């Protein structure tokens, strides 16, 4: 079977058009072409005559240069099918678009927009429209709806597939500003179409209407429009060896490669920083010192709970210069069991701790204070009881001189009951640095990853 090579006899090979006005040339691809507008001088000629008789002079093509690398006569391959670019219409739309305001109220707002509509003819003699505007590219395919909606139906139309009522996204009028290339009917600047469109997912479904001079409809067409990325379009034209498309694709691929590399590099760094935070952040599992001190109410020679009392000393702790130590003191205090209500607003049991560092000679070099407590508090405003507690205090200290140090542990008598204080000293690192670095590089990696995808789809 040689179905793919089949061509109807009526379609001949490209016919050379030479403009009678400026001498510019163009290969006509469509055997049924009746009109041709010279892309160099804007002269409209009759393609049915052998000498391409001049019909009109349109506006100069220099006022409407193409937006990107695509130009008349270019070739491209999409979905394995070769296409030729045979015409371009520049449209100017004056339309109403459904917009939501800050409060979520929807209303139609007036808008204007200009876009290029490229007409592509395939080797199989099928057409495809490519819309190009400042936002990028859209494929437009003719659509045959099961439930066609006719124009002027208000703000809702029939869903082409389900027939359900859907909101019109945009409606208005488009006017031809410029045309170049070949066509089977006469396209003139000033030609108008009316349109109404609704959106479903990523597809914009449009109904287009043309009218005669008396406002009577002459033609209704239906289209489905879907975004296509610049890279996909450049890939299609590159496949047909279009040098400008190849250059654009090369640039885009280099940008994508850069984004991808940075994403991986930063994600890798973030992962490494987080691994370091987890591995090293916990501190050395074996403490340098680990000692318990108990404070019995009966031991206390002081009646006042506000007086500091020396509980004990961890002597001769060997510390090396340039290390960070984490000093932790923990105690569980007796929980108070009382009825907290409007009459008795707060019950709390607390003990203040005081840690004093001395050097080898017994000179005081630094101190830390903290508070260990548990409390119940009655909130008279909403009648709730709030619990709060702090069962340990931690301090980070960096050592600048290697030597032996002593830690003296002081505390105030708990308000109620006895307490045992558990003091541990560990070598550690400040894991917050790894966390901050890891999270920041992670965020940048996510942003780069998102830019990679948005660049690819733009």
């Amino acid at each position, binding site marked *: 079977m040689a179905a793919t090579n089949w061509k109807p006899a009526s379609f001949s090979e490209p016919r050379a058009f030479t403009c009678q006005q400026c001498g510019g040339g163009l290969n006509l691809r469509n055997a049924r072409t009746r009109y041709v507008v010279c892309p160099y001088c804007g002269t409209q000629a009759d393609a049915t005559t052998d000498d391409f008789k001049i019909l009109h002079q349109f506006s100069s093509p220099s006022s409407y240069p193409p937006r990107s690398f695509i130009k008349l006569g270019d070739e491209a391959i999409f979905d394995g099918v070769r296409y030729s670019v045979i015409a371009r219409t520049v449209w100017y739309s004056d339309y109403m678009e459904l917009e939501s305001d800050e409060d979520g109220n929807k209303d139609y707002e007036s808008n204007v927009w200009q876009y290029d509509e490229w007409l592509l003819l395939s080797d199989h003699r099928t057409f495809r429209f490519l819309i190009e505007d400042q936002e990028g590219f859209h494929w437009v395919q003719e659509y045959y709806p099961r439930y066609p909606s006719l124009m002027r139906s208000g703000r809702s139309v029939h869903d082409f597939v389900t027939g359900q009522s859907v909101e019109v996204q945009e409606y208005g009028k488009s006017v031809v500003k410029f045309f170049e290339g070949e066509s089977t009917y006469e396209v003139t600047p000033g030609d108008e179409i009316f349109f109404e469109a609704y959106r479903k997912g990523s597809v914009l479904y449009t109904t287009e209407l043309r009218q005669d001079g008396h406002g009577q409809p002459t033609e209704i067409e239906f289209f489905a429009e879907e975004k296509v990325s610049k890279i996909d379009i450049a890939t299609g034209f590159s496949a047909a060896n279009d040098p400008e498309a190849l250059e654009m694709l090369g640039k885009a691929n280099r940008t994508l490669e850069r984004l991808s590399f940075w994403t991986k590099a930063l994600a890798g760094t973030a992962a490494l920083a987080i691994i370091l935070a987890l591995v090293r952040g916990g501190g050395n599992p074996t403490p340098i010192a680990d000692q318990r001190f108990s404070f019995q109410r009966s031991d206390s020679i002081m009646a006042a709970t506000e007086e500091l009392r020396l509980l004990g000393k961890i002597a001769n702790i060997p510390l090396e210069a340039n290390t960070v130590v984490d000093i932790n003191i923990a105690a569980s205090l007796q929980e108070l069991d009382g009825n907290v209500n409007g009459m008795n607003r707060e019950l709390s049991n607390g003990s203040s701790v*005081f840690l004093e560092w001395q050097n080898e000679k017994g000179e005081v070099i630094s101190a830390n*204070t903290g508070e260990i407590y548990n409390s119940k508090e009655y909130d008279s405003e909403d009648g709730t009881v709030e619990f709060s507690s702090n069962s340990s205090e931690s301090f980070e*200290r960096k050592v600048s001189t290697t030597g032996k140090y002593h830690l003296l542990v002081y505390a105030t008598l708990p308000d109620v009951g006895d307490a045992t204080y558990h003091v541990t000293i560990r070598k550690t690192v400040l894991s917050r640095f790894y966390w901050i670095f890891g999270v920041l590089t992670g965020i940048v990696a996510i942003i780069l990853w998102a830019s990679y995808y948005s660049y690819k789809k733009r």
Partner: protein
Amino acid sequence: MSWTAKAIVLSILVSLLVGIDYMATRGATADALEDPYVKEEAKKHGHSYRSVYFYSHRGGGSAVGGK
């Protein structure tokens, strides 16, 4: 992106990580074990520095209120 550029970027990232590691292990934001203020106060006031320091520095005071 050339291999040179990639190598530069990777070395910047590794240097940053090494810098972070240096700050984390040297305790860039931790208090020094030798606190000149406490040393001075302890020298000047002897043991009584403790109560002055303690009452002016202790935290969480309100939590043990209501005694």
